[in-house]
């Protein structure tokens, strides 16, 4: 399922801005970049894994280099942030997501970071994966990337008890 297919539905998107200086504005392009990151993260990190057992192409490109290094190592972060290591199941996949983007304006009023708070419900047959939390976004060159996260993943198959894992960005090099 490539990015932007009908299987992914973004139900609502709200945005707000916090500024350390003059009033700042989240442009449509910046908000769209945040939406795109959340959508691509869910599709490449969860949907594609359910379909193929592997992360979607370009998954690492969504993240900053330090976060990529963390996710490259086996462990809790990798198995929470992605769907790797879990069952694939079968059938059509549907994703319903909501999100709220918060921009951080600097003392000149420029947006220097964003928080993308989201909830995504991924369904495939009896399998349900609910992802929620926040992604910390920062500009890298001419694009935005994910440099931090505070995520929760709940997984259930049929009536079996659900399992939940959480992961948050540990100490990064400021």
């Amino acid at each position, binding site marked *: 399922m490539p990015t932007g297919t009908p299987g992914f539905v973004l139900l609502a998107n709200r945005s*707000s801005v*916090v*500024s*350390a*200086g003059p009033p700042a504005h989240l442009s449509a392009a910046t908000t769209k970049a945040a939406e795109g990151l959340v959508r691509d993260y869910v599709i490449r990190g969860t949907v594609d894994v359910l379909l193929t057992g592997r992360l979607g192409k370009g998954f690492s490109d969504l993240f900053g280099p330090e976060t990529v*290094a963390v996710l490259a*190592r086996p462990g809790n972060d990798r198995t929470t942030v992605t769907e790797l290591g879990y069952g694939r199941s079968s059938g059509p996949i549907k994703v319903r997501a909501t999100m709220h983007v*918060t921009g*951080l*304006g*600097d*003392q000149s009023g420029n947006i*220097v*970071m964003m*928080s993308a*708070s989201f909830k995504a419900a991924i369904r495939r047959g009896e399998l349900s994966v609910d992802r929620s939390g*926040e992604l*910390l976004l*920062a500009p890298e060159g001419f694009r935005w990337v994910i*440099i*931090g996260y*505070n995520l929760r993943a709940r997984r259930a198959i049929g009536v079996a008890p659900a399992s939940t894992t959480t992961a*948050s*960005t*540990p*100490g*990064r*090099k*400021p």
Partner: protein
Amino acid sequence: MLRGVAALVTIMLALTGLAASWLAGVHIPFVEGKTYIAVQKLHAAFTPRPDGSNGPLFIMFIGSDLRPGVGGARGDALHLMGINPTLHQATILDIPRDTCADVPGSGHTKINAANEGGNAAQQTQAVASLVGVPVSYAVEVDFAGFMALVDGVGGVDVNIPYPMHDSYSNADFDPGPRHLNGVLALAFARDRHSFPTSDIQRTWDQGYLMIAAIQKLEKSYSTIAGRFQLAALMMQHAQLSGMDLQDLVKLGQVADDIAPNGIKTVTMPSTGGNCLTPTASARALFADFRDDGVLESYPAGTPQDVSPSP
């Protein structure tokens, strides 16, 4: 997990070592646009470990006695925080202001003199040399900044462990839970006359207040967006050197990974009168702290550990 600590703001709430009678009955106005806080990046944040994980991060917090009508600026409240992101623990090492140490350019003298004129980097270097750790950030806050930040986050909750009645600092507290606004928190942090051990106990109280502030922020700013709010609040009155707003938010992330019960405060054991010297147990404590930013044990008789909330 500790959420929304936003360490910088958090910790600054607790700083200030103060001289005697200032502020008795005086209300300090909070001047819009004024700089009350200075944050400097001095060193690479982490030393990577062989396995690729981050080593400890050390941050120096200085409570300056700079205030209107008084010349100079001494670092009268000195707290060195070690954060271990792997262990999710932190330790606040409180350095008594009367500790004597080698101060760059001044020889062996009181360590608080290293900040004469507001040289936080020099103050930090003096403490770093004493303890033997690389300090990555120096954070300095003055009286007004302290109160403004406490008020800015809606005050802090503490459980006062002993009677504090001192006309010099305006501390007037009976033991028990209290909500402290900026003025009351400052009085709590300043009081040294209520205790036989004077500045030693006061130094420990400041560490206690730091943890109370961390707990408050954990409740109030538990999301990344919340950290944005804190950073924005802080930036209204902060001057950053060698870093920017993004760095500030990232630094908050570091502290965000500390468990609430994983924070300790300990006052450096010392001996002497007006010119305190670290004891042998303090040297052992430094070595323990240097290793991973966390103290595994405490010297006997050292004020230690707190649980600010009732």
